[in-house]
């Protein structure tokens, strides 16, 4: 058996893997080595091939070339069931769990505790509760998974995989929709598992997290292996250079003074706006050229606020004004008609139309806004698509590719492009940088600033407080589905936000979740 430099036994060995989708060469001759007991970060830009590598290893995609060895024995799982049986458990990036099944069934699907051929429902729930308790979750495990927020769904998926992992645990962007606290719990559990000799593959675009948790890093670029390093000996800038193949341009954050925005005037304002049982009534003013950040814990009502503002949900109280005139915002069409845009957080179910091409997805909102009888000509569509593919660096830069075949981060960029193409006056972004690589992340933040300078109003939700602090002119803090505080100017910093979130003294550890 081969032994690594740190003499831990080599657990999972991937040699010379190649994989093409038609003309797209997603992986070319990639090697990857996972040692027992290590946490190995797999990094790269959006579309670098991380998810593809994982799917090839677990047998979802047949590979074109290469071999995979597990514990020195060559394996070729033909399905994820086979991979599971071989001891590889995975949380995939896109597909989570089954929303129509109960949380408990999701956790124990295909391995329920049985007696006389009958599922022991009570025992299963007990185990489910115990398992989730390890992640700090106390929820009704008999309720359908779909009735819980994305975050809870994601934790459930992770819990299932952790419980399943016999030798290898693969986590493809597990932290994208979690906030700090959940991430800490997850890391603790990962360390415990690693301590038991399980090898963990960790994919993330959060470099802080990578440095915090990983022992070793493998970087992919354009489907090729760039290199494998010890985390401790790899400076951050060097890592970014490995990922991007170039230096990262500095982002400067020049926050405009409050007075400047006052001068530009109010874009939209909401008074006593709310919906019973959804979000408590709130007042909110969005000015041209200003970024308002929404901060709060998971389930605090940020998404709900965003949906009300856009019109994706009907309000039942309060008043909305757009450019000073009273406005009806009860359907998404109302929102679009008033020049609003909304990038939802659930990219797959509410964002992309997977089957349609990048071009069609980009022009969709613009076309809907223009109406049926004013179709965009194919030339206009091509032009718009080409512009945004270039501007947002969507890869592969082929506007005729079905969006569903793009990597997660690139799908997110397409969504952003869809709304930018409508030249909105207000853009509501729910977790816009989720799953986006460092390079693009910087691009998007730069873009947000640029859009503001053009007079666009922005309402941005992000779980990354650093990020919110970077671009927000004002930050609204939510707790328990109510707006509790608004921070401005110099008051905006991470510790103030955290303080506001935790103000009522409730420990973050037991957030009120549905």
């Amino acid at each position, binding site marked *: 058996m081969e032994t690594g430099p740190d003499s831990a036994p080599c657990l999972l060995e991937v040699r010379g893997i190649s994989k093409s989708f038609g003309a797209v060469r997603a992986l070319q001759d990639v090697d990857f080595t996972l040692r027992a007991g290590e946490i190995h970060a797999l990094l790269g830009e959006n579309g670098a091939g991380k998810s593809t590598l994982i799917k090839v290893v677990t047998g979802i995609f047949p590979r074109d070339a290469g071999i995979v060895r597990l514990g020195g024995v060559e394996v070729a799982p033909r399905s994820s*069931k086979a991979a599971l049986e071989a001891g590889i458990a995975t949380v*995939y990036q896109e597909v989570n769990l*089954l929303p129509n*099944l109960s949380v408990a069934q999701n956790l124990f*699907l*295909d*391995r329920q505790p049985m007696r006389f051929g009958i599922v022991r429902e009570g025992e299963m729930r007990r185990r489910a509760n115990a398992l989730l308790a390890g992640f700090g979750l106390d929820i009704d495990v008999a309720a359908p998974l779909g009735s819980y927020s994305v975050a809870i769904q994601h934790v459930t998926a992770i819990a299932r995989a952790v419980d399943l992992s016999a030798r290898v645990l693969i986590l493809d962007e597990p932290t994208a929709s979690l906030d700090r606290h959940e991430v800490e719990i997850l890391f603790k559990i990962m360390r415990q598992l690693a301590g038991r000799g399980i090898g963990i593959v960790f994919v993330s675009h959060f470099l802080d997290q990578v440095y915090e948790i990983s022992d070793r890093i493998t970087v992919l670029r354009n489907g090729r292996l760039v290199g494998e390093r010890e985390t401790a000996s790899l400076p951050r800038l060097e890592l970014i250079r490995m990922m991007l193949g170039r230096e990262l341009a500095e982002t400067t954050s020049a926050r405009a003074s409050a007075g400047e925005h006052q001068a530009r005037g109010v874009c939209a304002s909401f008074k006593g706006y709310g919906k019973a049982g959804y979000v408590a009534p709130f007042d909110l003013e969005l000015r041209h050229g200003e970024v308002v950040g929404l901060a709060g814990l998971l389930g605090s009502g940020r998404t709900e606020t965003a949906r009300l503002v856009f019109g994706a949900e009907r309000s039942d109280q309060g008043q909305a004004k757009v450019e000073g005139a009273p406005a009806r915002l009860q359907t998404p069409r109302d929102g679009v008609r008033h020049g609003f845009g909304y990038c939802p957080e659930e990219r797959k179910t509410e964002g992309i139309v997977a089957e349609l091409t990048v071009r069609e997805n980009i022009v969709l909102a613009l076309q809907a806004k223009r109406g049926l009888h004013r179709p965009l000509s194919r030339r206009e569509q091509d032009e718009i698509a080409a512009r945004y593919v270039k501007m947002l660096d969507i890869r592969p830069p082929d506007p005729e590719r079905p969006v569903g075949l793009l990597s997660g981060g690139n799908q997110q960029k397409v969504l952003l492009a869809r709304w930018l193409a409508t030249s909105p006056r207000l853009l509501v972004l729910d977790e816009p940088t989720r799953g986006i690589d460092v390079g693009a992340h910087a691009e998007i933040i730069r873009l947000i600033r640029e859009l503001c300078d053009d007079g666009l109003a922005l309402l941005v939700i992000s779980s990354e407080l650093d990020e919110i602090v970077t671009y927000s002119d004002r930050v609204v803090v939510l707790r328990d589905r109510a707006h509790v505080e608004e921070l401005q100017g110099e008051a905006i910093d991470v510790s103030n936000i955290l303080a506001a979130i935790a103000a009522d003294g409730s420990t973050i550890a037991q957030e*009120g979740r*549905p």
Partner: protein
Amino acid sequence: MKGLPPVLITAIVLVAGFVLCALQFPNIASTRVVCNLLTDNAFLGIVATGMTFVIISGGIDLSVGSVIGFTTVFVALAIERWGMPPLVAFVAILALSAAFGAAMGAVIHLFDLPPFIVTLAGMFLARGASFLLSTESVPITAPIYSTVSDFALRLPGGGRLTAVAIIMLVIVIGGALLLQLTRFGANVYALGGSRITASLMGVAVGKMTIRIYMLSSLLAGIAGIVFSFYTGAGYSLSAVGVELDTIAAVVIGGTLLTGGQGSVVGTFLGVLIQGLIQTYINFDGTLSSWWTKIATGVLLFAFIALQQVMIAIARRPAVRPAGATP
């Protein structure tokens, strides 16, 4: 917490409908009519149980009516012309229909074809095969047939709980337990949630697909045998169009055609609702052919609309209020 579950609502709708019918025709409120309802819809209840599994798993099976037709012809010929003992004929046809279902499931899975069309081809195939066997109706004279069709538990009020009704009830209960309590049942729901996700979570999607269609065809085969008990004959045109009645019963019973949600009990209620509509029309007896159709449509609409309204009311608080942590 969540309001009334849809199945209960369907049950309420059924009872309300029954009471209304009974007010107009008091004869309806008798054990006799209730037992007739069970007997007359026995074969429908059986196929609908199988169809429930298929639909919850996100598929559809259009071949069931033809499989029933084929079964009756096969059984009749086997017993009357080929001299098979009835039980052997039953075993043979059940094996045959299960294999037929498995084949459809395999085609659906292996070639990634839409179930609607594969089972439509199955429908043509089974019906065509029964024409080849015999275009004439074949009476069955085997003693077991009269024994079974004469058997009935007599209830006060003229009701006769017949053998076929009992078979149906047993299958409905068995189906409900299979769906709710076993790993197979959980996997059926999983497939309906999303085939891809289910497969990622380690469910053997191919095997499940084959088994689900096998189950459906097997139950269609049983329904065919029950149908042959019911009519005492085999006929290649029997049960034409039953697939649509079955699907309607399943959907009225609250199962989503897109898969992932539903129950066998709901389906059973759906079957009874359809039976009640027919009983009502038969009792009325003044309707011409066309008014029969129109009334069936209107009643169908009334039941579904009532059910939807009640479900909408029950779901009123769409989002659970904050802090309602269980």
